[in-house]
């Protein structure tokens, strides 16, 4: 009976993974199709990669997306970290409930609403104070920071709650003033979380279509906006080529990160074994 159940679970797992991956694999296969009509095989070719690389629009969109993603990730990490610190370490302060509501609401807010509301804000602002005079890089970046910082804050919050608070007390006890405690102890320990937050914010920004298409202006196409405008009208082999490049890049990145984490875990296990071995040495030494 138990055997049967685990067979069922295992086949569901295989089915689910196939469901997740077959479309992506096919996407990649057809990027090497010579034919102009995507699903009809016309022989192996790099034709569409060439078309892609020769398109200045693609390069412009990519550059804009990367610029936004980097600036967004950096600011979102900074502010998300501050927000996480405030929520976990400062106890009660005035307006805390509103603050924690505002920081976590973007996580569940439908994109169309976030996009619409920010666009209306930018329009209102430009009416009253003349800024932003045009929409594009700045407005998209601001919009992205607003929702990415929520994700960073969640990561930082969970890191901080998992962190032994007596570490910070110990630093104070040894003579470090509060700001010093922050720079010497809290931030270094948070560093891996901040890195994870940065990467997540970077990816979220690169991936966003809906919010960006609300707050962008004429001439400022991010990569998702460009892709969307092309695929709305049907299948495009050059988009398959672009998708292949993106998927392969991300896959390499994720696998590499996974491998590094796995290596660190192994190292940690070895260290612990080493410590245990030392302890045995020490015991025999003193009892002898």
């Amino acid at each position, binding site marked *: 009976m138990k055997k049967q159940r685990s067979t069922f679970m295992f086949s569901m797992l295989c089915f689910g993974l196939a469901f997740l991956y077959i479309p992506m694999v096919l996407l990649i296969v057809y990027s090497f199709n010579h034919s102009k009509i995507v699903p009809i095989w016309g022989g192996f070719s790099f034709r569409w990669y060439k078309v892609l690389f020769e398109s200045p629009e693609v390069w412009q969109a990519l550059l804009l997306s990367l610029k936004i993603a980097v600036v967004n990730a950096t600011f979102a990490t900074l502010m998300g970290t501050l927000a996480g610190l405030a929520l976990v370490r400062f106890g009660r302060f005035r307006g805390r409930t509103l603050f924690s509501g505002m920081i*976590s609401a973007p996580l569940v807010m439908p994109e169309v609403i976030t996009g619409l509301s920010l666009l209306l804000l930018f329009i209102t602002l430009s009416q009253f104070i003349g800024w932003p005079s045009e929409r594009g890089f700045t407005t998209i970046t601001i919009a992205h920071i607003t929702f990415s910082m929520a994700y960073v804050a969640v990561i930082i919050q969970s890191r901080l709650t998992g962190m032994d608070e007596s570490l910070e007390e110990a630093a104070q006890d040894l003579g470090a003033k509060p700001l010093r405690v922050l720079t010497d102890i809290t931030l270094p320990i948070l560093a891996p979380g901040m890195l994870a937050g940065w990467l997540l914010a970077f990816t979220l920004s690169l991936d966003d279509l809906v919010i960006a298409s609300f707050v962008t202006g004429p001439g400022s196409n991010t990569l998702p906006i460009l892709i969307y405008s092309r695929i709305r009208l049907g299948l495009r082999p050059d988009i398959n080529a672009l998708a292949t490049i993106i998927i392969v890049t991300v896959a390499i990145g994720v696998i590499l990160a996974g491998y590094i984490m796995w290596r660190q875990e192994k190292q940690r296990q070895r260290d612990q074994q080493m410590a245990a071995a030392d302890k045995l040495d020490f015991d025999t030494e003193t009892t002898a």
Partner: protein
Amino acid sequence: MSEASQISNSLVKNLSYKLQSSWKTLVVGIPYIWLFIFFLVPFFIVLKISFAESLIASPPFSSLFQWAEDGALQIRVLFDNFAYLWEDELYITTYINSVKVAFISTLICLIIGYPMAYAIVRSSPTKKNILLMLIILPFWTSFLLRVYAWMGLLADQGTINNLLIWLGIIDQPIRMLYTQFAVYLGIVYSYLPFMILPLYANMEKLDITLHEAAADLGAKPITTFLTVTLPMTMPGIIAGSLLVFIPATGEYVIPDLLGGGNSLMIGKVLYNEFNNNHDWPVASAVAIALLIVLVAPMMLYQHIQSKESES
């Protein structure tokens, strides 16, 4: 002398206290002000415009505040837009349809995701890491491109139809792209990882000996599942379901690309009202109405998250 030094001492202390509280103010203040300006204020602007009248002007809506002839400030709040949504059958159908699509997709995600999460939890540590990575990987790749992949599969000239014709099962392509079916498929495909990850996190903490205890006390596997496993994984089920249901209800890209003109979803209606019809007040009213639908699940999710972080 000693009094003077005492006074100067307390002054220094006061000052350093102020400095300290000032950096704390900075830490809270920066993200606070940012969110206030770019999250809270925009929300109220949407709310305000939803009560305005649509005009052919720039901006295309009337002001709520007007100076009457005698100089008094008048506030004109119009419920016309909401009344319009209520009276137009199209909108009501769209709302019901969105919730229905999101709900059914969530259920399908749960049915597929639950055994998957369970199988991952039960596998060996090395396998577990690889499987988890396989679940997370799609999450890091472009959402848009994953939806696009299905366009290639489902099209009339697409891979599935070609395969079926080649196998001789059908001789006319089945229409799959631009149908409701494609929308379900796209949502389930895109949001499946959001269901699996909270379920996994929840099941990972589950004590395996509970199952053994239940079996030891004479429960059949199905009874163990219904009386032990299912109730214990309920927090994961709820969290995962909300993470699928909430964004799916307001989804725009999937119904637009896979559902075509046949799919009625609120997100798409909002987008079209705003970008194609330039009816800002109606778009804002749609947004507010969408929020009203989602406010209960959103608050439930926040409640679960805050309970989770406390324990």
